[in-house]
């Protein structure tokens, strides 16, 4: 794969590296949050990141679309290096969708407007086309009848499914999930996970998911990553990860959450 400093989009084939993180280091003031992170993700790969709170897992995936800035190391997303250039940042953000713990829907816009905002303003699509795409994705997440409501009128699970649909409307290459089910009532977690599993099965979407849903990790993930203290402690296939943890730290973590 060739790398240039331009923000020109390249077609990356399935199985090629789509995210390359090398020696990434980040500090909040004097606090060292990310320590020498090295991670390579192939196109179509599904990765689950877990670890105790404060381990830097959210910070790491938020660096991928520059919601956080790192101080050392390099990051290449979809062939575009993450540098200060606004063009590169915008180009990367167009290819990376993100789903947040607290949904972050825009409360002053209807569901349909939430979904069409990006396609209309960023991708400059005509309104009719954007709305048709939006309705398609709302059907995929099984709430087309809520299109004209406002986010505040929906349940948490519905809001999170709308948030997933909003990201999908931008047709991203990569989806980042930042603890998507942590803020949900127990009865609603499954409806969101089902949508995510479907997405993984059908689309072959590259997914990085920070979550504590170990059942989801077992069924969907190609690789599970365990982080603690700002480091990647272990990464492995789900089978090896859960059955034969290599470090005592992971063993302790698993014994406490399962």
């Amino acid at each position: 794969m060739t790398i240039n400093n331009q923000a020109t989009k390249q077609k990356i084939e399935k199985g090629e590296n789509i995210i390359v993180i090398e020696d990434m280091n980040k500090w909040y003031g004097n606090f060292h949050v990310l320590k020498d992170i090295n991670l390579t993700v192939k196109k179509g790969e599904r990765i689950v990141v877990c670890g105790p709170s404060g381990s830097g897992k959210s910070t790491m995936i938020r660096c991928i679309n520059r919601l956080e800035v790192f101080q050392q190391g390099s990051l290449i997303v979809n062939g575009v290096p993450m540098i200060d250039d606004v063009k590169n940042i915008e180009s990367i953000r167009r290819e990376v969708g993100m789903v947040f713990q607290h949904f972050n829907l825009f409360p002053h816009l209807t569901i349909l407007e939430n979904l069409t905002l990006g396609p209309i303003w960023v991708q400059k699509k005509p309104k009719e086309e954007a709305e048709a795409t939006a309705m398609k994705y709302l059907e995929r997440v099984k709430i087309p009848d809520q299109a004209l409501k406002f986010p505040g009128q929906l349940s948490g699970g519905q809001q999170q499914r709308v948030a997933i649909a909003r990201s999908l409307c931008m047709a991203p290459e990569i989806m980042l999930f930042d603890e998507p089910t942590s803020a949900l009532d127990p009865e609603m977690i499954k409806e969101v996970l089902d949508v995510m599993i479907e997405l993984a099965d059908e689309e072959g979407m590259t997914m990085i998911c920070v979550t504590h849903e170990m059942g989801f990790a077992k069924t969907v993930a190609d690789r599970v990553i365990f982080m603690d203290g700002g480091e990647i402690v272990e990464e492995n296939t789900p089978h090896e990860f859960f059955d034969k943890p290599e470090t005592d730290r992971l063993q302790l973590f698993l014994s406490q959450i399962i």
Partner: protein
Amino acid sequence: MNMKEFIAKPAKPAPSSAVGPVAWMRENLFSSILNTACTVVFVAFLVSIIPALFDWFFWSANFAGATQAACVGDGACWVFTKAWFQQLMYGSYTDGELWRVNICVISLFAVIYAATKLPKDYRNKIAIPLFLVLPFIWIIILNGKLLGLEHVSTDYWGGFALNVLMAAASIIVAFPLSFLWALGRRSEMPFARTVCVILIEFFRGVPVLALFFMGSVMLPLFFPEGTNVDKLIRVWIVLILFMSGYMAEVFRGGFQAIPQGQYEAADSIGLSYWQKNLLIILPQNIKISMPNILATFIMLFKNTTFLLIIGIFEILSTTQAALTNSNWLGGHSTEGYVFVALLFWICCFSMSMISNSIERKLETSHRN
């Protein structure tokens, strides 16, 4: 095993002791001894004052006639306000041309009405641009030169219409300007931030009267030699800047109340800086800041009466002129100032109503 079916209980109506006027009075007026005492004292106060007020305002008041001689008795002399009505409302604006002032005021209310009634799509596309050109249309209409109408110099503009139009014209320009200042104050660019902080703090920190004097005396020193910017325009600029200083801080409070997640969601979709701030942040900010925006606007509206100090014939100046008129000497100041107070109160109260309606319109959810 047979599963027991769960049936939710139906809701029952509330008992009569919890709803209805009697329950309301018991709860709100007579709930405790102190509450009951307050109610009684307040009612007694109203009973003692209202008849006298009504008597002065209506029963003993003089409405008919056209000169001071028509005023007899103890009641209010509304003949005074009737005789001076045109002066109070329009200042010395040329007699036959008052329809131009009326058009300006009506156009203001028409656009406000349209902005609250139009569906959302049209509101943004029609009402907002209309608002922004209104002040300039007013200047053209009132001046009249460009339209081939009789030219009326700003020296003759005045009265309550001037207060209303001046306040409206100021807030219309101050609104976008203050949002920019507030954005600049949050900006990561040191230059923009410094400039905005200095502007905001200066115009908030200096008393508005001092600003008016600066506007009418000092500002001309900064204009190039030979240019003569009208006094009213200079005062308009001062009001805009003063208003912007306050509003920028109101908007800053709004910015801080918007959850960080909104910015992050907008970023992650790929919206640019301006798209993010205009499409996502501004509408939510206005909703949060609406009560404070209105408070600032009412303050500005009332501050337009300070224009009397620098010799502009707004309503207080015209009232004073009327009170010192040789035909009307002899204590009509109560009527004059009550009339002015009523006018301002009606306008400010209507603005409260409008702001409430806008708040309801923007209200979609308290949840994030």
